[in-house]
């Protein structure tokens, strides 16, 4: 929308080192509020992580205290239990296959929507865009019936395939502008060099769209890793549980052992957190790009 003004804005930024507008704010106040904000955002997470390093008696006598002494037995217990690793493995399978499926299907259909001209293009795009409005919770009851009819209940693919389907709208909305932005000249050059449209797709589009693909891939992975309601419906036996189901099962099974619950919980949020911190710029950039168009 305002991209035309961007270079000018950058030039202006260089000319006047910023900080003139917010002068009246007084910097200490800004830092103070920012500090409070960060503390509020982070302390519940720290509570979960640090709580795993305490004993139950520490937690009972001083619920808000810090670990003293630090104990690692809770984490060791969880890390040596087969339940955790099985659920971790299930979540990893679901996350990775969902990501691969979403990226492959998403790039292909986005390429068509971005660079081909055909009659139903707008309608197909709108169909996917409308999917944004109807999240999984609304469709879950009939979705369960469909999965049951396909015989995929208690099967990880019963989670993976719907997860891919529900990741497609976001993927397409992020990827289509990305693929449109590839200059026509590159396509022409490829065609002069004798590449077909599909050759152009594999040799040029896939590498050039990699940043966008990474964004949608991470979103799909984190979405699949964190999803709760779909596994809740589809996966019934504990052998197929993913981590979110596992966390809930664990916390009702060991409801008296708060420290162990906290250790289990913090270990199960770790992969999504690591993924996010590695690719934070891309996620944030992709989200904002999608909203700004």
């Amino acid at each position, binding site marked *: 929308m*305002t991209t035309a003004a961007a270079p000018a804005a950058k030039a*202006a930024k260089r000319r006047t080192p*910023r900080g003139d*507008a917010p002068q009246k704010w007084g910097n200490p106040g800004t830092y103070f509020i920012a500090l409070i*904000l*960060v503390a509020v*955002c*982070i302390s*519940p*997470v720290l*509570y*979960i992580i640090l709580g795993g390093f305490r004993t139950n008696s520490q937690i009972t006598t*001083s*619920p808000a205290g810090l670990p003293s002494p630090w104990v690692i037995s809770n984490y060791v217990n969880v890390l040596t239990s087969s339940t955790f690793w099985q659920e971790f493995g299930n979540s990893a399978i679901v996350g990775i296959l969902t990501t691969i499926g979403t990226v492959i*299907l998403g790039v292909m259909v986005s390429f*068509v929507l971005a660079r081909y001209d*055909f*009659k139903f293009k*707008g*309608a*197909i*795009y*709108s*169909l*996917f*865009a409308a*999917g*944004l*409005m*109807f*999240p999984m*919770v*609304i469709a*879950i*009851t*009939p*979705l369960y*019936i*469909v999965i*049951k009819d396909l015989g995929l209940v208690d099967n990880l693919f019963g989670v993976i395939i719907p997860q891919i389907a*529900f990741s497609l709208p976001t993927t397409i909305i992020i990827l*289509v*502008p990305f693929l449109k932005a590839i200059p026509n000249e590159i*396509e*022409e050059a490829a065609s002069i060099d004798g590449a077909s*449209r599909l050759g*152009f797709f594999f040799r040029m589009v896939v590498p050039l769209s990699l940043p966008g693909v990474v964004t949608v891939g991470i979103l799909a992975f984190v979405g699949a*890793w964190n999803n*709760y*309601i779909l596994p809740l419906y589809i996966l019934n036996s504990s052998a197929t549980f993913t981590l979110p189901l596992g966390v*809930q099962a664990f916390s009702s099974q060991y409801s008296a052992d708060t420290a162990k*619950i906290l250790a289990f*919980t913090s270990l199960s*949020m770790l992969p*999504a957190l690591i993924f996010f*911190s590695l690719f934070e710029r891309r996620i944030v950039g992709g*989200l*904002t790009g999608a909203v*700004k*168009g």
Partner: protein
Amino acid sequence: MSNTLGTDTVVIGDRRQSQGATEAGVTAVTPASPRAAKPRRRGRGRLRLEIAVLAGPAIIVFVAFVIFPVALAAYYGFFKWHGYGPATDFVGLNNYKLILTDPAFHSVLWHNGAILVLSLLIQGPLSIFLALLLNQKIKGRSLIRVLIFVPYVISEVIVGTGFSLMLQSNGAFNDLLHNVGLGGLAADWLSDPNLALWTLMAIISWKYIGFAVILMLAGLQSIPEELFEAAQIDGASYWQIQRSITLPLLGPTIRIWAFLSIIGSLQLFDLVYIIWGQFVSGTAGTSTMAIYMVAQGRDAGNYGYGSAVAVVMFLISLIIALIYQRFILRRDLQGAVTEGAK
């Protein structure tokens, strides 16, 4: 989104012919395109095949697992059906009558409405304020942005588990209040019906404020700097600039965020289900439509009724989405989420 759905839907005529026409038109407009360079190389059949091969799988998966289930819900909603064998016990609109007259549904509807309005009222101003604050050049800004986004990345199950332990009446939060001398404020945050909804709102705000702030920051950064400079030269104060320049230009971002927030509020499930469970949530006053759907459908083994609840939720979301798009998002539609449709 659905606005374009209406305008873009093309008349389904002779597909072959019209596709050829479109293609010819394109070739005429962009003479430098590869198709013009090698006219009719391998013909239109190949083009159609490519489109079908590339777009087909995604469309099939999407229709089969997103669109079809919603249609199926509309069908099963007319039956009394327990999920086994074909649905034969046709009850007409009976399920819908039961839903609309069930006081329990009225109360979840009320909760969803309250959550929707409170989310907008709490997170909207707060996220704009925080975005304005973080848009300044301060040290560690990018680190702050990462940290406030962390709650958004953690799954609802973990957030729910953590908060339900922390907010127990003998939990860490009350202990913290005692330690800083505010012991008088300690309360039963989760089960007191007067407090539970506000507790839920606090947790929702905590979880989703980072997302709102990131969106607002992106919106702020797309406002050209010259406008601020011009206003400053004209002697406008900081707050005048924010009110007359920032807020209006941030409008599209705010409206898109509000839309996402509304849709999110209508389908809230995980957090409530984890923290309160499907039984306590009713008495604590936090149950939502989705909780009602799962309790009455899946847990009661009454899939026909559950489907009908899904249809009601779908219609409520659809109506709100359409009204919102028709009257509020209309002016943004061209440049916003539907950009790629053009």
